[in-house]
């Protein structure tokens, strides 16, 4: 078990290093940080001084090393656009994105899984066909369009829900939460649905496909041949086998949610990391882009690791593989 975790961590390291390299390359070769920071008029002496300060006259690997060292401590320098420490900006925006992502994931799972199970078990019912049509549309609608449509219906025409911003937030230490105010919750509804809808349809189709596969297996046939009750066969045997691969994919999807938050935050002007990122891309604000990239990579790697561990805990075949010899007879 410990060896497993260790090997996974070691595998994650090259990924992080590659991402760090790309981030650093962006810093070093894209644009000219010196002229960006100094503006139009500057003297040679000012430029030389800045170059020395930023360590831009050092060899590549030394610079890279410093970059990684700084990154690990969360130090990414100043944003070109806002002239504030990048780490501060991100910390400020992170709670918004994370709360949004969490709500979206909850919607996707709590609605998507039951829908998937239902359409897998009762293939011919009209409700299943309805769900399937709905899911096909969900996959074909881009996230931003869903957001726009929801805004049109619920903000412009019905006026029930806000179309931008987080509403009132309560500050708890360095975390700002929208869960504790009514306006905060109302502001979360439309963006969460927008962000979660795509994942919902994905999960629903995944669960359905997996369920159909499982229902065709020999062990389900054998379970029926032993006269087990439908409920045991469907929800005991079939469901359990369906959920195991689904868990892993659903876990990986969480990372996708964080990425797609970029679009949702843009539509709803949600003050999160995604909006920050897109604004940085538009303004060629490299430090923010680099920091976001490293952070996202870290999140993805962490999610991958967590999912692997989860799989390990849930599927007995993986556990026993480690000591297969003992069990043979």
């Amino acid at each position: 078990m410990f060896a497993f975790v260790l090997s996974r961590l070691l595998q994650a390291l090259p990924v992080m290093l590659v991402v760090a390299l790309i981030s650093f390359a962006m810093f070093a070769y894209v644009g000219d940080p010196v002229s960006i920071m100094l503006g139009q008029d500057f003297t040679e002496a000012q430029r030389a001084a800045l170059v020395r300060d930023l360590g831009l006259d050092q060899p590549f690997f030394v610079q890279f090393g410093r970059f990684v060292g700084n990154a690990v401590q969360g130090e990414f320098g100043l944003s070109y656009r806002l002239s504030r420490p990048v780490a501060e900006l991100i910390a400020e925006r992170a709670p918004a994105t994370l709360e949004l992502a969490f709500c979206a994931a909850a919607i996707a799972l709590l609605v998507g899984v039951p829908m998937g199970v239902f359409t897998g078990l009762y293939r011919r019912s009209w409700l299943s066909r309805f769900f399937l049509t709905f899911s096909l549309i969900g996959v074909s609608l881009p996230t931003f369009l869903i957001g726009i449509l929801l805004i049109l219906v619920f903000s412009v025409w019905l006026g029930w829900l806000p179309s931008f911003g987080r509403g009132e937030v309560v500050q708890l230490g360095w975390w700002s939460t929208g869960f504790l105010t009514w306006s905060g919750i109302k502001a979360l509804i439309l963006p969460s649905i927008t962000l979660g809808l795509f994942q919902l349809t994905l999960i629903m189709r995944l669960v359905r496909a997996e369920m159909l596969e499982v229902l065709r297996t020999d062990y389900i046939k054998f379970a029926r041949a032993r006269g087990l009750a439908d409920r045991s066969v469907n929800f005991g045997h079939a469901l359990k086998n369906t959920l195991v691969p689904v868990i892993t994919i659903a876990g990986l999807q969480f990372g996708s949610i964080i990425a797609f938050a970029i679009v949702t935050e843009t539509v709803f002007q949600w003050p999160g990391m995604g909006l920050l990122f897109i604004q940085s891309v538009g303004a060629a604000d490299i430090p923010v882009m680099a920091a976001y990239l490293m952070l996202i990579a870290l999140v993805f790697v962490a999610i991958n690791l967590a999912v692997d561990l989860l799989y390990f805990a849930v599927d007995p075949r993986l556990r026993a593989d480690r000591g297969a010899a003992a069990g043979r007879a």
Partner: protein
Amino acid sequence: MTAAPKPLLEIRNLRVEFPTRRGTLVALNDVSFSIAPGEILGVVGESGAGKSMTGAAIIGLLEPPGRIAHGQVLLDGRRIDNLSPEEMRRVRGRQIGAIFQDPLTTLNPLYTVGRQLIETMQTHLDLSNGEARRRAIGWLEMVGIPAAAQRIDSYPHEFSGGMRQRVVIALALCAEPRLVVADEPTTALDVSIQAQVIALLKRLARDKGTSMMLVTHDMGVIAETADRVAVMYAGRVVEIGPVRDVVKSPHHPYSIGLMNSIPPLDHRVERLAQIDGAMPRLNAIPPGCPYNPRCPKVFDRCVAERPDLLDAGTTRAACWLYAPGEPLHV
């Protein structure tokens, strides 16, 4: 022929069809036979002859769109082919058990062996948890799993192939059915293990007086284990009789070809005997006797009319050669 005891299982004129977009395929065409209590009936034939289909039809697990178009399946004189799904479910496991071919895919990998046994028993028999667990351990011991009390909490992948099939046998028998349909129970196992598993099956069947329908393409297994054997071809039973008689002196030309093609152990042969041609596909079954294109003894009547099982002395064969009044064809 002596008067047979009342059969446990009776198949009468069973016809199984598969409607497809290109027309209806007939997988089983007018199949009839019976199994007496405590008897082991072997069912042999090539792949696609309809052996597994018969088993599936008996336990009511035909894959849709397959369906029983005609005929009856009777268990102890009662029809079971027209029961409601819930009633049929109660028959499965409790009255009729099933064993499938591949023990690796037949067992749910996420549940322990004990859990699967206990679940099956508690579905059909009224047992407390403790009693069910005790019996489960007992069953594992009966099928020859060493250290049963510990292994009961193991997962299927922790057993070797032969052990897994023993677990499958235990699962099929634990609700105490009167008939077991075993579909190629040893085909997926190592040759060295096959003999053990077959011997186990035979012993358990005898000890508990359970009837068995043993489906296989392996004549050796049949010769060792069965009391009677039915030979199937293109969805029909072409010969049926006591195993000794069918193996030593078959009457249907197909059975003759089949028995001849088994290489003898006592002398050398230059070429292996084989039957020319191949069994017809379901959408290309010839009129009359389905074997007529390959039969060395074919004559006019074979192509015109389809023969039912006729009395051929020691066995019954579906061949016009044995029609009463037919001159002897040599």
